[in-house]
């Protein structure tokens, strides 16, 4: 480990700080980016980055990398574990095709130049399990988003229009789960599933509660904004995977019209590809991406991520239990389900995206349409790992967004259904290198509310990726193979100033931090005491005193007090 680094002569792209492919040096001391004067040149380790691209480490803001869902996926799919990536030696053995073991997740992110990854759905009662797995993922910083949209406390406070209690509950729940923000999955729909149903619009009544999905979303957004959490509400919309659902998505996005936050969006809508279908059946299904992109572009307070499918194997796993059952019925595949106390549920179903399958090809096209048509400042690159496929194929998406020529080649091998059901063939947009760097670094860091991530300005965490690509020379429209290859394996991955990867090979194992947000000072925590006691004694199977995760149980917790 070197406590000082001098990264010399690299070509830096740092969108947050307005650096557009400039030859410059980067200096690192004690895990942070510093001014040149802060380091002593003869003590610092020099990294020659001549003719190479130097960027901040990648930030994956939405992936299912830890907890009971992915682990049930592993158990259910031993066929996924047959791919051996690494034999035990200096590093742990690492296996997995798309579903990876915890060590493999950390290693693969690091090799790709990613240094942060967020678990996007933490079941509250299983919070400790999620953290145990996060603590088994080496190399990257991480955090988890607990799921709120069907939790009975939330439904009750929304029905009672009691914002003070809702705020206190969110602060309590995020502290107890050691979570980072407010994830909402099919609000109301998972509760309806407990009775065998789902919701079909923003205005359906949730069984047993006098609330609608519309009210749940707007109340949670309002509470999150009043608490000023780092991250906005992170919404998995209602009606996922249903033809015609794009209208619900547009409607959901518009719910936050007029709500302001100076530093970030007030609503992040996730894996939008799965919620961007027009038509009224799988026969008439078509892309609804354009309408969604237009809506997002017209607003200044909403961001989205793609949820891009990658052709090949994947495993659908979401907190959207009724959708998972629908998928099981549709494909006839294995199905795991988990109804969780009075908090929500989840489901897991294997899938494979086939290029010649009309619907799969359309899903693939819709993801790309969203990436291309949405402002680069509002759309983050994700596959919703492992729902859309592996995160290790992010370089494929980056290259596709930058090259129409590459897309034309790919369009030739997919179902012709895409030609009439989507606009992808007609889209000429080619994102710039700077834009895709933003979509994978500075933008997700801003969306999550992590000011020290995703950029190379002084004071930022020294999370740095160096790729074998000269942005001053590369022709991103035509050199897509080179781009893909360059972003697949970093020449250097540096985490908190430690060199973890060199020439695409791991050289060191490192344990990143787990961020959690403490908002208890922002709410009247006494307000919910009686309700907590009552709900736990009546409806839970664990004692209130035994619910939740203590900081000292975690490997490297990083508390963010707001």
């Amino acid at each position, binding site marked *: 480990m070197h406590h000082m680094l001098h990264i010399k002569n690299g070509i830096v792209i740092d969108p947050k700080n307005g650096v557009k492919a400039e030859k410059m040096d980067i200096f690192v001391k004690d895990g942070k980016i510093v001014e040149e004067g802060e380091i002593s040149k003869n003590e610092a380790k020099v990294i020659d980055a001549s003719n190479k691209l130097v960027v901040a480490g990648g930030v994956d803001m939405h992936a299912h990398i830890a907890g009971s869902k992915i682990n049930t996926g592993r158990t259910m799919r031993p066929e996924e574990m047959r791919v051996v990536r690494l034999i*035990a030696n200096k590093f742990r053995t690492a*296996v997995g095709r798309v579903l990876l073991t915890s060590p493999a997740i950390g290693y693969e992110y690091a090799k790709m130049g990613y240094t942060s990854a967020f678990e996007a759905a933490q079941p509250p*009662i299983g919070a400790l399990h999620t953290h*145990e797995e996060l603590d*088994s993922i080496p190399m990257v910083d991480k955090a988890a988003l607990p799921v709120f949209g069907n939790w009975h406390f939330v439904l009750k406070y929304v029905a009672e229009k009691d914002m003070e209690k809702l705020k206190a509950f969110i602060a309590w729940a995020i502290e107890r789960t050691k979570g980072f923000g407010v994830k909402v999955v099919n609000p109301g729909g998972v509760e309806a599933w*407990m009775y065998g149903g789902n919701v079909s619009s923003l205005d359906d009544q949730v069984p047993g509660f006098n609330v609608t999905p519309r009210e749940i979303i707007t109340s949670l957004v309002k509470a999150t904004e009043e608490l000023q959490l780092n991250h906005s509400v992170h919404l998995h919309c209602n009606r996922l995977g249903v033809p015609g659902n794009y209208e619900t998505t547009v409607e959901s996005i518009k719910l936050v019209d007029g709500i302001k936050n100076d530093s970030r969006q007030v609503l992040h809508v996730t894996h939008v590809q799965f919620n961007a279908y027009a038509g009224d059946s799988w026969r008439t299904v078509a892309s609804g991406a354009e309408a969604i992109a237009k809506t997002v572009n017209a607003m200044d307070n909403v961001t989205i991520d793609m949820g891009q499918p990658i052709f090949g194997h994947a495993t659908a796993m979401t907190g959207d239990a009724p959708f998972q059952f629908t998928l099981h019925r549709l494909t006839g595949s294995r199905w*795991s*389900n988990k109804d969780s106390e009075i908090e929500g549920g989840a489901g897991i179903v294997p899938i494979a995206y086939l290029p010649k399958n009309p619907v799969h090809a359309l899903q693939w096209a819709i993801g790309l349409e969203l990436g291309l048509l949405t402002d680069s400042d509002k759309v983050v690159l994700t596959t919703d790992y492992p729902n859309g496929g592996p995160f290790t194929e992010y370089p494929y998406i980056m290259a596709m967004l930058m090259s129409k020529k590459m897309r034309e080649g790919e369009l030739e091998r997919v179902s012709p259904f895409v030609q009439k059901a989507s606009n992808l063939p007609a889209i000429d947009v080619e994102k710039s290198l700077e834009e895709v760097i933003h979509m994978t670094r500075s933008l997700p860091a801003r969306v999550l509310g992590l000011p020290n991530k995703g950029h190379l300005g002084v004071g930022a965490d020294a999370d740095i990726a160096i790729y074998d690509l000269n942005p001053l020379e590369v022709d991103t429209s035509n050199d897509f193979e080179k781009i893909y290859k360059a972003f697949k394996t970093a020449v250097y991955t540096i985490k908190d100033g430690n060199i973890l990867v060199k020439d695409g090979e791991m050289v060191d194992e490192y344990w990143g931090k787990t961020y959690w947000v403490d908002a208890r000072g922002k709410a009247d925590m006494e307000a919910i005491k009686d309700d907590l006691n009552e709900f736990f004694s009546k409806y839970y199977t*664990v004692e209130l005193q035994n619910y939740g995760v*203590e900081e000292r149980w975690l490997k490297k917790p990083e508390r963010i007090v707001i």
Partner: protein
Amino acid sequence: MAETVNVVCTFCGSVCDDGQFDTEKFKSKKLCKLGSSKFSEKERIKAPMVDGKEVSYEEAIEKAAEILVNAKKPLLYGWASTVNEAIRLGVILTEKVGGVYDQCASVCHAPGTLAVIEEGLPGGTLGAIKNRADVVVFWGANPMEAHPRHGMRYSISAKGLLIKDRKQRKVIVVDVRPTKTAKLADEFIQIKPGYDYPIISALRAIISGNADAVPDEVGGVSKEKLIELAETMKNAKYGAVLYGLGVTQSRGRDRNIENAVKLIQLLNRHTRWVIWPMRGHYNVVGAGEVPAWEVGYQYAIDFSRGYPRFSPAEFSAVEVLKRRDCDAALIISSDPVAHFPRAAVKHLKEIPVIQIDPFPNMTTLVANVVIPSAIAGIEAEGTAYRMDGIPLRVKKVVESKYWSDEQILERLLEKVEELKR
């Protein structure tokens, strides 16, 4: 200072977290017979031993490390009665020494895991059952003896959101003999041993509208009765099948569960149903979940090639021992000498054995290195998964001279790494 503190019970898969424990008198309150016997004074292994001679922890661990490093293919077995932190170190240790990791499920609920591979596991937490289930079917399971407080806390008389009264829940027991649980049930259906599979098939046929194909009697149950049961299931608002070893360890094994899961899939086309195994040891779920995230599989994992391979018929402990395919063994929180088939035990007697356990048992008698450990839940803390996968932190409520499993394994792993360098 006498103090009564909350404890999380570390006996069975119910992991009741409402126990009270008097640290002075070493006595518990609220726990069942099984739990309170664990939470009381018991005979302990006094000190670490090598070949019957008392030694220090350091010496015993050093010897254990030598055995593991010198073995070509050691077996590391047990794990169901310790905490996840220890299990994780155990998986890493097995990987390091190129051995075989296996855990108690392989002689217990592993057929259920195979069924998950075949069909998945449409389930729910015990809290979902307590709050919502108006029909509960115990199939080949007898919680009144194996998980005494399960019925009261989660399933039979538990009250919750929608079920406010025992009368609002119908409890059905399907078993080969009248059990203590059957006495509490609203209905007991006695079946012929080994006929679980055809009975489940008959129910599937009836529910999918093919009652014609069902003969007058299946496995000792009349067609009439089967139709009645199928109707009860279809008319439930939220049903739960909770199955035990009566299904996993009788004829059909994993196929029984697979068939039952298909029944649940079918029922969910009409109403809501979940299915879940009644897991035995307090952290047998953790003994499968931890290796699943660390190396991809739940049990029967061989690392002799430096990467994990899963093969139940080859790499489960009994098979490995019967085949004489291991040349040393580490047994933790388990007693294979008492429970394994004679042919397997025979090989265990012939190879160097390391035992880590708070209590002496039959395996102690064949162990060359015995390392006593602190009792998780009383003298050591850590994470355990209830039978439904819900994580609970078991507590350390009294000081002890014994090292925890986690401490022992951490040191052992260090030693092994030193020796391998």
